[in-house]
């Protein structure tokens, strides 16, 4: 008999596939030279964005970081507009002004990828204060990398969130590396859960490669935050399969590490095993994958065909008072 959870898990499976397909295509388009700038992929980390965001509402706010494609897709950003943004085309989520590192879709509460690590944490606590002041029924989630927790502003934000008992959830997406550095080599103490606890923020570890676990734990902490019980922190352990940047040659790690992850821990296969163990057919799973491939295919094609933004738009969206002037 079909497991009552199957619908929910299928939805998680679909989102993870969407992220994976998107991210792997980023690698391809980067190699082809179609992506103008740089891009950070989240291949292998899909369960974190998917599981956490599955517990959020569209009206909730999400602050992302430089590795933001997955967060955006999970929150419901339009992949067609995202590809246009990556290619620097008109119709991109930011009109071509941001690119991968600043992908954002405010219409679904995705308040932006960001090129400066940890700033999402300080902005998140402020957004949570705004929600309080306006009497709104939303919460704020900030996605933060493992390397980023050593930046001072992150510690400040933990203290701040607790002092004002703000509705904010910090999600530490721990993919083992920070650029080319193994995070544990530059991080002292017992880890981020211990740190958050010391700052008075209740914190919990979760297997970030198990989307069901992430989703279940997120359900609890999101409920607590929504019920005004104060801030929470979720530490999700996962792994970065691709390079720091899409063109990283990865001399600093052994390829075996990656193979091991793909065989034993990779989240989509794990989720698929759950589904097939619980009565979903392999072909139903494949259908989802195929649909998504087709969507991404179309999105990429459409984006590649889109025009560049008009150069005059370079002068819009900046300071009202006093028109910018080109000197000389």
């Amino acid at each position, binding site marked *: 008999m079909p497991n009552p959870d199957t619908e929910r898990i299928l939805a998680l499976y679909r989102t993870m596939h969407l992220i994976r397909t998107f991210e792997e295509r980023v690698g391809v388009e980067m190699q082809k030279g179609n992506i103008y700038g740089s891009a950070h992929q989240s291949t292998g980390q899909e369960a974190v964005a998917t599981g956490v965001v599955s517990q959020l509402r569209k009206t909730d*706010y999400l*602050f992302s970081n430089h590795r933001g494609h997955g967060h955006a897709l999970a929150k419901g950003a339009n992949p067609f507009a995202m590809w246009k943004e990556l290619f620097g085309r008109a119709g*991109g*989520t*930011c*009109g*071509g*002004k*941001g690119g991968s590192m*600043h992908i*954002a*879709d*405010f*219409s679904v509460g995705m*308040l*932006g990828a*960001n*090129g*400066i690590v940890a*700033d999402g*944490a*300080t*902005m*998140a*606590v*402020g*957004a*949570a*204060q*705004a*929600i*309080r*002041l*306006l009497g709104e029924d939303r919460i704020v989630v900030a996605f933060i990398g493992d390397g980023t927790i050593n930046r*001072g*502003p992150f510690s*400040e*934000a933990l*203290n*701040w969130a607790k*002092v*004002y008992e703000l509705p904010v959830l910090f999600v530490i997406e721990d993919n083992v590396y920070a650029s080319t550095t193994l995070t544990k080599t530059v991080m002292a103490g017992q880890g981020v859960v211990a740190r958050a606890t010391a700052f008075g923020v209740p914190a919990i570890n979760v297997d970030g490669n198990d989307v069901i676990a992430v989703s279940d734990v997120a359900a609890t902490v999101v409920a607590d935050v929504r019920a005004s019980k104060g801030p929470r922190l979720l530490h999700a352990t996962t792994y970065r399969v691709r390079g720091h940047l899409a063109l990283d040659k990865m001399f600093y790690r052994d390829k075996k590490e990656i193979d091991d992850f793909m065989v034993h821990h990779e989240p989509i296969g794990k989720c698929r095993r759950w589904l097939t163990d619980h009565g979903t057919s392999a072909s139903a799973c494949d259908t989802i994958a195929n649909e998504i491939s087709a969507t991404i295919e179309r999105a990429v094609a459409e984006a590649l065909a889109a025009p560049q933004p008009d150069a005059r738009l370079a002068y*819009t*969206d*900046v*300071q*009202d*008072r*006093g028109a*910018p002037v080109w000197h000389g």
Partner: protein
Amino acid sequence: MARMTYADAVRHALAEEMRRDKRVWALGEDLSTAHGNSSANQYTGLIDEFGSKRIVNTPISESTIMGAAVGAAVAGTRPVADLRMIDFGLCAIDELVNQAAKIRYMFGGQARVPLVVREAIGLKAGMAAQHTQSYEAWFAHVPGLVVVTPATPADGRGLLKASIRCDDPVVFMEHKDLWGLEGDIDLDDEGLVPIGKAKTLRAGIDLTIVAWSRMTHVSMLAADELAKQNVSTEVIDLRTIYPWDQQAVLASVEKTGRLLVVQESVLAGGFANEIAAEIAQQLHWKLHAPVARLGAPRIPVGYAPALEAEHRVEAAKIVQEGLRLVKASKT
């Protein structure tokens, strides 16, 4: 007409705006405990009217004061973040420059950042190297930021109100040594002062002095002295550093043919250079004398009065430079 200090005037302005718009709030260190002689005099008593949700006393966490204010602005409120002095504001440059100034643009107009950042500038006796800096020039160099430097109680009030109503981030730079200055305020009038408009404090035909913040007062003293020496000086208070009022300065220098830009901060890299360069370029053939600038030498501020004095641009120096300009002229 009420007579009040600069500190009272800006406090009054903040209260007016907080009453008018429930989305306006303030955050910073020691704001809720401000009383009498505390260092946060511009907030005295506001906690009583607006409570701790809108006058938010913060931890000593400059990065988060700024970052939280940016997040709160993006999320629909209109925060006034007080960093107390630009010297401490240096601990929150990233959040101001990389986030507040860029969010609207880099997200393609999806968000606005209606934020006022208060970072007082200026020399104050005996405050030494780390409490006397002025960096208005830095923020002129940052696309996305508006920079205002009001010199009087009325302008403090009017520009703070305009800044709070601005939909883009405004760096509001009071001068630590002006908070005690008294002036007339018409409380029956809304008193808004437009951003980007200079004010001619005194008309003249021989020489234009452009200044801002505390230097406008020193320049007025110098103009009095120059008048005694038969130099008729026009003094312009720029009020807004960016966007600065080119029209006003051009019009004045077209008339006088001589320009002296006076700033308090270190001349090297200072904003006086931009005004001088722009006017020299546009009015080159009409000038009676080369455009001149005055500012502090490129040394930190020393503590002892004799050392600190070397950092100050006093009226006597302005007078001397004004006379030199008039004499240097080819006519």
